[in-house]
C-alpha cells in the first residue's frame, strides 16, 4: 500500500509537470487524437502530450514494457486513471489498436506480431480499424463470405466488409476472413491483419439516416496479404472474434452514461413543453420522463451492482448479459423522449432558426437507432439471455 501511495505521488508530480495546461481542459469530440501515419493534431500540445505519455508507455499502462507499454499493475493503472481524472488530463490517444487489437495480440498473437504492432499502437503511429460485418453477415456474423486463399507466402483476399468504423482514415485493418469454406461456418474463419495501403483495398464512407458517419464499406479485390499476418491458428479466428465482441458489447452497453448529458429529457421538457411550479407542466409527459429516469437509474444501479460483485470476487454471472440490450434500448428511449418533448423544435434538420443543440439532438436521436443493431442486435441479445441465462431450449 505504501508503494501504491508512493506511485500515486510520483504519478501526480509527473502529470503536473508534463501535462500541458491545454490538455487539462474538457475535450470536445473533434479534438480526440487518433494517431496514425498521417495524424491530425489541432494543436502542438496534443502531440507533445501524446509523445510524453507514449514514452512512458502510459497510453497502454498495463501492457508489458517490452512492447512499449507502461508495465503497470492493475492497481497502479487505476491510480494513474484516478490521478488523470483528478487533474482533468485528457486521454492522449484513442484507438481501436489500444482497446481492441492490442489485447487480442497479447492473448493470441505470436512474438513477431507483438513486436511489430504493439509499440506502434502505443505511440499512435498506426491507426487500426475492424473488419467484421458484411452485407450478408450481420447478426449471423459467422456467415461471412470474405475469402482469403493461401497462395504460397500470401493470402489472396476478396470480399466486402461493412460498418468498418473510420476505415477511410485507418492504416491497417484487423479482419475476419473465410479460409475454409468447406467446413461448419464457425470453423473456417481466420483473423487476419491487412495493411490498408495494399493494392486492391478501398474504403467508402457510409452516409447514415443521421447524416455523415464514421462507418465505411471496405472492399478487397485480389489483395495480397503476407501469410505471417494471420493471428492465432488458421481457421480458429472465431474464438478471437468472440472475445473481441464481448468487449465491444460492454462498451456499447455503457453508451448512456459516457458523459453527463447536458440536455436531459426533463430539461428539454421543462424548456420546450412548459414548466409550472418548478415541474414539467404536462403531467402525462412528466410521467413518461419519470418512467424513463426510473428505468435508467435502476439500470445504472445494476451496472454498479455488477461492478461491486466483480470487485468482491463474486461472479456477476448472468447480469452482464443484459447490459447491451437494456442500455441501448434505454438510450433510444431517452432520445425519443427528448425529441418528443421538443416538438417541432426537436425535428429540425437545417435552418438558421433552430438551436444548434436541438439540431444535434435530432441527429443523435437518429443515430441512437443503430444502438440496438450494432454490436449484436437487441434480438440477438435477447436470444443470448434466453439461452445462456435462462437455459431455455433451442
Amino acid at each position, binding site marked *: 500500500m505504501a508503494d501504491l501511495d508512493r506511485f500515486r505521488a510520483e504519478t501526480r508530480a509527473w502529470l503536473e509537470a508534463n501535462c500541458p495546461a491545454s490538455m487539462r481542459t474538457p475535450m470536445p469530440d473533434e479534438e480526440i487524437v487518433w494517431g496514425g501515419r498521417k495524424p491530425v493534431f489541432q494543436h502542438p500540445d496534443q502531440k507533445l502530450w501524446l509523445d510524453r505519455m507514449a514514452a512512458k508507455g502510459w497510453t497502454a499502462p498495463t501492457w508489458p514494457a517490452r512492447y512499449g507499454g507502461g508495465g503497470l499493475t492493475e492497481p497502479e493503472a487505476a491510480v494513474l486513471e484516478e490521478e488523470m481524472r483528478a487533474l482533468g488530463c485528457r486521454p492522449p490517444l484513442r484507438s481501436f489498436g489500444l482497446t481492441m487489437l492490442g489485447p487480442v495480440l497479447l492473448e493470441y498473437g505470436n512474438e513477431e506480431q507483438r513486436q511489430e504492432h504493439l509499440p506502434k499502437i502505443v505511440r499512435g503511429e498506426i491507426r487500426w480499424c475492424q473488419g467484421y460485418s458484411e452485407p450478408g453477415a450481420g*447478426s449471423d456474423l459467422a456467415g461471412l463470405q470474405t475469402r482469403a486463399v493461401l497462395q504460397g507466402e500470401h493470402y489472396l483476399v476478396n470480399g466486402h466488409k461493412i460498418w468498418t468504423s473510420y476505415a477511410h482514415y485507418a492504416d491497417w485493418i484487423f479482419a475476419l476472413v473465410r479460409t475454409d469454406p468447406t467446413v461448419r461456418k464457425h470453423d473456417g474463419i481466420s483473423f487476419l491483419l491487412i495493411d490498408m495501403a495494399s493494392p486492391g483495398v478501398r474504403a467508402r464512407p457510409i*452516409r447514415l*439516416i443521421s447524416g455523415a458517419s464514421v462507418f465505411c464499406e471496405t472492399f478487397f479485390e485480389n489483395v495480397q496479404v503476407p501469410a505471417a499476418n494471420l493471428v492465432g491458428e488458421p481457421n480458429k479466428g472465431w474464438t478471437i472474434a468472440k472475445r473481441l465482441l464481448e468487449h465491444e458489447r460492454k462498451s456499447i452497453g455503457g453508451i448512456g452514461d459516457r458523459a453527463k448529458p447536458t440536455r436531459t429529457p426533463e430539461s428539454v421538457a421543462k424548456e420546450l*413543453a412548459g414548466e409550472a411550479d418548478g415541474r414539467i407542466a404536462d403531467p*402525462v409527459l412528466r410521467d413518461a420522463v419519470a418512467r424513463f429516469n426510473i428505468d435508467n437509474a435502476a439500470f445504472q444501479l445494476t451496472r454498479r451492482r455488477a461492478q461491486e460483485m466483480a470487485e468482491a470476487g463474486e461472479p456477476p454471472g448472468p447480469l452482464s448479459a443484459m447490459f447491451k440490450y437494456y442500455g441501448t434500448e434505454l438510450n433510444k428511449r431517452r432520445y425519443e423522449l427528448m425529441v418528443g418533448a421538443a416538438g417541432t423544435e426537436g425535428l*429540425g*434538420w437545417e435552418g438558421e*432558426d433552430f438551436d444548434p443543440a436541438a439540431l444535434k439532438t435530432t441527429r443523435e436521436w437518429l443515430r441512437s*437507432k443503430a444502438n440496438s443493431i*450494432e454490436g449484436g442486435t437487441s434480438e440477438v441479445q435477447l436470444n443470448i439471455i434466453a439461452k445462456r441465462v435462462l437455459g431455455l431450449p433451442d
Partner: protein
Amino acid sequence: MALTLSADARMVRDTAMDFFREKSPVTELRRLRDTNDADGFSRRLWREMAELGWTGFLVPEEHGGSGFGMVGLAQVMEAAGRTLAASPLLGTALIGASALDLAGNAEQKDAHLPGLVAGETVFALALEEGPHHAPHRIATAARQEDGGWVLSGEKRFVLDGHVADVLIVAARTSGAATDRAGVTLFLAPGDAPGVACTRSIMADSRNAARIRFDAVRLGPEAVLGRVDAGADVLEAVLDRARAGLAAEMLGSAEECFERTVQYLKDRRQFGVPIGSFQALKHRAARMFCELETTRSAVLAANAALDARANDAAALVSLAKAKANETLHLVGNEGVQMHGGIGMTDEHEIGFFMKRARVAEATFGTAAFHRDRYAALNGY
C-alpha cells in the same frame, strides 16, 4: 357513414396510387433534398395533380371544384403517403380550400379559388407559435388601424411557408393569449411588406418556415370569416387537415410495413429467412392489427366529416391519435427489422421513420388527441 369505399372513391384511389408510384416515388423526395430544390416540391407534378381534379375535391362546383369530399381526398393523401410525396396537398388542397370554403365570402372565393383549383396558388397556414400544437395559444396580434389591420408577431412551423402565395394567419384580435375567443383569421399575401420568412428544413426533408410579421398592413377584406370568431373555423379546418394527414400517415405506415414484411421474407441469416423467427413474426402480426384498426379509424373520420356527423371531431382525434402511434411504431420497427442497412441513408426505409416524427408533431401529437378525445367524450 360507410366504412367501405364507393366505386368513385375506389377509382380515385387507383389513379392516385398509380400516379405517385410512377411520378413521385421516394427517389423524388431524395432528389428534391439532394438538389436543395428551392420549392421543396415539383410544380410540374403539382399542376398534374390539379389537372386530375384533386385540388378541387373540397371546392364546390360553383367555384370550379367537384366537392367530391374528404373521403376522396383521403385516398389521394394515402397514396401520397405511400411514396412520401412532398406537395402542397395538405396546405393548399386541404387547408386552403377548406378555409375558403368554410369561411370565405364571395369576393374571397372568387379571388382565390380559381388559382387554387388550377394548382397555381399555394396556401400556407400560419398558426403555431411554439414547438407544440396549440391552436388557441396565439399571441400574434392584429390591431385595427385606418379601417384596416396591422399584424405583428411570429409564426413557426409554417408548412410550405416559404413558397406560399397566400398565408392564412391566425391572429389575436382580443382576449388573452390562450383564450379560444378573440382569434381572427386573415388572408395575407406571402410577399406583403413586413413579412419576413426564413425557410427551414425538417428531419423529413420537407419545408417549414418561420415567418415574422412586422407591422404588416392588411385591408379590411383580409379578414376570413368573422372577427374574434376564428377559432371555430380554425377547428373545422384543422379537423379536415388532421383527417387528411392521418390518411397520408396511414399510407406511409402501410408502405413501410409492407416493405418490412418483404424484407423479413428476403433477408436470410443463419441459413433461414429472418421472417421465420417467431419474435419478429409476432411483432409483425401486432403491427398488422394496428394498421387495420388505424385504417378503420381514418375511413370513419373522413366519412364523418363528409357527413357532418356530430362525432366527427372525436373521430378525427381518434384517427390522428391512431395514425400517430401506428406510424411511429411501424417506422421504428421498420428500421430495427432492416438492421444495419436500415440505418443507411442509401436505403429508403429510414425516410419513413423521419417522416413519422414530423407528421406526428403536425396538428397534434397522440397525447394531444387523446386528451381532446377524452374531453369530447365527457371525461
